[in-house]
């Protein structure tokens, strides 16, 4: 079976938030597809794991869910970003960049 890299741990939440911030309300499948496409097929979300993550974000109040008609004429839950989620996204991106910069400094050839 073809081996695709998992997304780095702890970043799934940030990716979902960023997706919602960029494209507005989306359902779970849409979010997975978007992450997959934008990352140029590099980031493969194990699609099922989206849902526990989304549940957690619902509890934290970062996203809000709303049931609407989807493109295949079925009911789907559309997630949208809340102001709190926007704040969370900003802080997560900041934190991520800090960590990335540090990693880059370590692995850069001297």
């Amino acid at each position, binding site marked *: 079976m073809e081996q695709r890299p998992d997304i780095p741990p702890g970043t799934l939440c940030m990716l979902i938030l960023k997706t919602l911030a960029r494209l507005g309300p989306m*359902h*779970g*499948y849409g979010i*997975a597809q978007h992450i997959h496409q934008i990352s140029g097929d590099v980031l493969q979300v*194990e*699609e*099922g*794991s989206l*849902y*526990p993550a989304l*549940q*957690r974000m*619902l*509890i*934290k*109040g970062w996203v809000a869910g709303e*049931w609407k008609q*989807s493109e*295949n004429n*079925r*009911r*789907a*839950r559309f997630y949208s970003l809340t102001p709190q989620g926007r704040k969370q996204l900003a802080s997560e991106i900041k934190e991520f960049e800090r960590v990335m910069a540090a990693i880059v400094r370590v692995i850069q050839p001297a």
Partner: protein
Amino acid sequence: MRELLRKLRFLLRRDQFEKDLDDEMRHHLALKAAAEGSAEQANRHFGNITLLKEESRTMWTWTFVEQLAQDIRYALRAMAVNPLFTTMAVLSLALGIGANTAIYSFLDAILMRALPVERPQELVILKWRAKDMPAVVHGLNGSRSGAISPNYPFAAYETLRSNQNVLSTMFAYASAWGLNIVVHEQAEVVQGLYVSGGFYSGLGVPPAAGRLIQDNDDRPGATPVTVISYNYWQRRFSSNANAIGQSILINKVPFTIAGVSAPGFFGVDASVAPNVFIPLHAAPLLAQSPGEDGQRMFFNHNFYWVEMMGRLRPGVSIQQAQTALAAQFHSYVESTASTAKEKIDMPALWLQEGASGLDSLRERYSQPLYLLMAMVALILTIACMNIANLLLARSAARRREMAVRLSLGAGRLRIVRQLLTESVVLSLLGGVLGLFVAFWGIQAITWLLANGRENFTLHANLSLPVLGFTLALAIITGIIFGLAPAIQSTKIDLTPALKETRASAPRGRLRHAIGANRFLIVAQIALSLLLVIAANLFVRTVSNLNKIDLGFNRENILIFSLNARQAGYKDAALGRFYADMRDRFRTIPGVRSVGLSDFPLIAHYWSSQDVVIPGTQPREGKRDQTCLLNVDESFLSTMQIPILLGRGIEEHDMASPRVAVVTEKFATTFFGKENPVGRMIGIGNPKKPADIEIIGVAKTTHYNALTGEIPTVVYTPYTQNPIRQMFFELRTAGDPLALTKTVRQIVDQTGTGVPITNINTQARQIDQTITQERTFADLCTGFAALALLIACVGLYGTMAYAVAQRTNEIGIRMALGAERRGIIWMVLREVLALVSAGLLIGLAAAWETTHFLAPLLYGTKPNDPQAISLAVAILIAAALAAGYTPAWRASCIDPMTALRHE
């Protein structure tokens, strides 16, 4: 916080959330299948659906709660495994927590509860104080109650009420005492309260039916109306609405029932709880003596009788209000003081917080209750120590279990938390059981305090604040006794603990545990000693009180009162009525003699007047006063009070001339060594001639109370003085109370509408004056026994455990030829060592603390050596008894078995 709400919503609508999640995943798979061609393909990259759902679900639930549930389940299992330990722990906790809850419920009832009125915290009570009873004050009796009083002249009330700057409203009231009320042609005596027109609106309480007393009702000449209490409405009118508008007779005067006050409303003094409320201005209609006419009540500026309450304006502090009102009252008093003598000591107004109403209950019971609270707190402490002790022993036994869990990676904190959960579950169980103990305890204490009184008004119950107290207490005790053993049990050396076999004796750290164990035993014994000493002191107090020589024979006397004045009898007819009733009671078989007095002896009644003795110098700086008792000719002989000089009052003295028998104490106080018989005295107004001849001297008796200085007393024929109600004393051959029914029949037969009240026996009447001391002795004895029992159980447990630990050693000793007696002594020596240490500490603590009891003791000192040595003896005996079984068991060890024990 929001997060919590969302989680709660999840709990409530769990099914919906599950369905949503399911739908969502299905939708995802459907889209994916459409995109990738086959459902199988889609499924493969999605992941384990069940697991994902489970994961999503855990996002919504609480790990804390789940772990708690898990811990509780585990705790219950651990408790079930060790039923003896559990029973002992829960029982001692139930007793400790129950006793605390019971006493606290009384504290709650009298100290914490606010009046059931609108915004009670705004209420203030107006009082005044002076150095002595001021000359400007008329209408108040003597200075015995100290010169602090809530009574004011009516004119002062009107003056103060006109000032609306500091108090938004002010209202007045005055006790109407017992009133004769005829409802449905049945007479009874009930408590009444005179209230001003603004009373109900000022307190802000609504009626339960009809209307309440208003300003319109409270003016001279208004139609007499009354408001009855909810209880009385239920009792006499079966809560029937047609009671409103009915006419009832109060002291033979018709009053119309205007309404019913709210359920639970008891006026302003929880200890009185009147049944009828009457407008202030109707008071003269019910007056029983010439001194109570309307002229005097409402227009005499020196006649102090009404009490007042007010409501602070918002933003006005009690000090500000006091300053303003005190100045106003001062100028009022100054205007009423006519002589220089009256201006010397004038009453000064002060304000008291009124949120919980008048404080008669509080004054009487708060100090004893705080003391009892301290005692039950000690008991709970002893119980806690006991359980801590048991837990320490058990934690030694659970070392292996803890070692296994720790080595498998359980966090120490997690284990401490689990052990604490166990102890809190234990204490909560104890708390629940303790509520039953408290329920029973409240009834027992109420019964003790009421001591046969019918109108006992201190009612405690398991109210919501009390339940809260119990819950808090249970949780706190659980943590207190559980924390040390829990922490200790996680501090073990893993490797040796794991190597221990189940049967082998733990070593090393356990020594430490046993050390803590012993320390707890010593502390328990010290605390028990305190309680046993207190119990001894109270028991001695009661026995001293019972040994007091009264001066008369208290046994076999039935006492009760009749008030014919309220039923319309006056003057000579009144005296004839009482004499006639007395003669009827004389004919009852089993009655030896019958006496009459205007109140019984040793019942806290007190009546005193100025006395003038011509030919003697008035004593320096003191007003000559004496106590009085109006009696008939057979009172002294019925009470078996001997005449020492002269003669007693005889039948022919009842009319005239005025005569008196004085007590020996009176004779020596006012006449020294002279013979007072034949001398004249004057009583009451000092300006009137001394027209009473002393005809005899009677033996001194206690007058109003068992304790305190005995006053001088003058016995006068009741027919020569104004009287109202009279008490009858029936000396009987057998049980006095057995005659109650006959007496009632005789009174009913007269058909005069005079109800019989205050039925009691003289012995019980006296006993009721020492209820507090008796209750203390009973409760304290019970508490001490309880403490001793708990401590002994602890001692027994510790010794039994120690013996079990030393089985091997004892076996070796016996194999080497130690005698059984020697083994018993060896164990008992250890018990004695522990007890001696405890006793020493306890004695030191007692030395420091028992002086708090001094005001409650009689005839004994807080450090009474006899009481203390008895307590020490009791403790040593109890400890030896507790220690003997383990010692005896140790001596029965079979050396062979013991050596194989390992």
